[in-house]
């Protein structure tokens, strides 16, 4: 009973922080320097890892699909299937998972160490709202940078798929890119581009909340970072399913 009460109390605090974090984005004072710093850390800092992961996922997917489709004589559809999978599903989810592992854990541990080092208390003593100063720039940077990274990751995954389709599976490059072009329709692009905004918001809120509720020294900090990553991963995957269901319904796909 006590644990249940604690869970509900934590959930209430989490929702409050998430709402306050979003609402305060548009309220003065604005901390532009912090925002730029966070965008640099979340965006530019994550680029290389996103490029690498996306390239190899695109290549692996193309390899698997080429092998399977060639058995039924439909190898020419590799581009189309790779395109739909990457744009609608794998791209946004994969980028969000990498983002949560790198940026989310960083946010949680940074805020956690600020709590333990009394830096958050110092902010409050100086009359600075920690939500505005620490949470808002992180939420905004995640909402802006995750979609950007997803677009770049998608492009690199498609390139990886192309390399395998052309140089390993010996398909025509022109056919591959024309299939990809066919996939770039409003429904697919919308389905793939809505998710990163929501994932970014969720990752930032979860990481900031776990960071700001850190207790108990170095062990507490370890627990915080692990918790931020695990909860973010689960939330991304569950919310991806829910969003997919909603988007398919809204965009008129029949299942």
């Amino acid at each position: 009973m006590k644990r249940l009460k604690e869970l509900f109390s934590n959930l209430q605090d989490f929702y409050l922080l998430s709402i306050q974090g979003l609402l305060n984005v548009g309220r003065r004072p604005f901390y532009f320097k912090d925002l730029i710093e966070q965008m640099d850390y979340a965006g530019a800092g994550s680029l290389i890892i996103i490029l690498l992961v996306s390239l190899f996922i695109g290549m692996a997917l193309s390899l698997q699909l080429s092998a399977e489709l060639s058995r039924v004589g439909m190898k020419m559809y590799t581009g189309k299937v790779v395109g739909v999978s990457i744009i609608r599903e794998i791209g946004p989810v994969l980028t969000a998972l990498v983002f949560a592992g790198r940026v989310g854990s960083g946010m949680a541990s940074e805020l956690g160490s600020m709590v333990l080092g009394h830096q958050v208390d110092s902010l409050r003593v100086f009359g600075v709202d920690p939500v505005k100063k620490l949470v808002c720039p992180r939420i905004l940077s995640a909402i802006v940078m995750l979609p950007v990274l997803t677009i770049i990751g998608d492009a690199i995954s498609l390139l990886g798929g192309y390399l395998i389709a052309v140089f390993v599976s010996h398909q025509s490059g022109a056919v591959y890119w024309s299939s990809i072009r066919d996939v770039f329709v409003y429904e697919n692009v919308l389905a793939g581009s809505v998710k990163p905004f929501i994932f970014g918001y969720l990752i930032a809120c979860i990481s900031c909340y776990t960071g700001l509720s850190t207790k108990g020294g170095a062990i507490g900090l370890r627990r915080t970072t692990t918790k931020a990553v695990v909860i973010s991963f689960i939330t991304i995957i569950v919310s991806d399913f829910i969003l997919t269901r909603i988007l398919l319904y809204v965009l008129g796909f029949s299942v």
Partner: protein
Amino acid sequence: MIEFDHVSFSYGARPVLEDVSFLVHADERVAILGGSGDGKTTILKLILGLLKPDSGKILIDGEDIEDKTEDDLKEIRTKFSIVFQEGALFDSLSVKENVAFGLREYTKMSEREIDQKVRVLLRKVGLEEAMELMPEQLSGGMHRRVAIMRSVAAFEPKMFLYDEPTTGLDPVNADIICKLILDLSQHGNGFIVVTHKIFDAVKLAKRFMFLRNSTMVFDGNMEKLLHSSIPEIQIFLRELNLT
């Protein structure tokens, strides 16, 4: 004036303060002694409204701070200057930016004026040359000196609050910090220093409080402290006799 009226506070199921009452005037020099985890730092956080008591009242200049919002508390917090344990400098800001932090938040000074004020403050503690350094590049003593200057840069506090200001410092640096604390209170500003170093407490304070197992078991002057029969105080005093 700070008044604690039967204040109790706990972290979850663990009581940290139980039925603590005291009254401290703004010009008093008080040391709160006690073991680790006995609630010394919690008292400072309660004074500033960073924590809310489970029961009891906290009055600052006669004003109950319990139901105050963060915005209302801003004004109350300007009456104090606090230096947290280990300084609590902002890691991502340079020494100059740390000291200038309050000036940027609270004043409308130009960049040039801020720069000049920061230089003057850092010069006082012999750290003008360290202005561009990051906190990670500072020694423990430098950290505390910067933190003290940061805490007085923006506003003129009535009272200073110090959380373990000399813990982890060598005797030379601890002495520098003690002298700085006394210098700052020359103009009649009092302070509350929370420490477990009796030697520094005796150097600084005129009134002593002692916390044991979440309760205030002693409140008195030096003479009363030396003649206290409380075993824990005797243990603290033994350290004093050795030095």
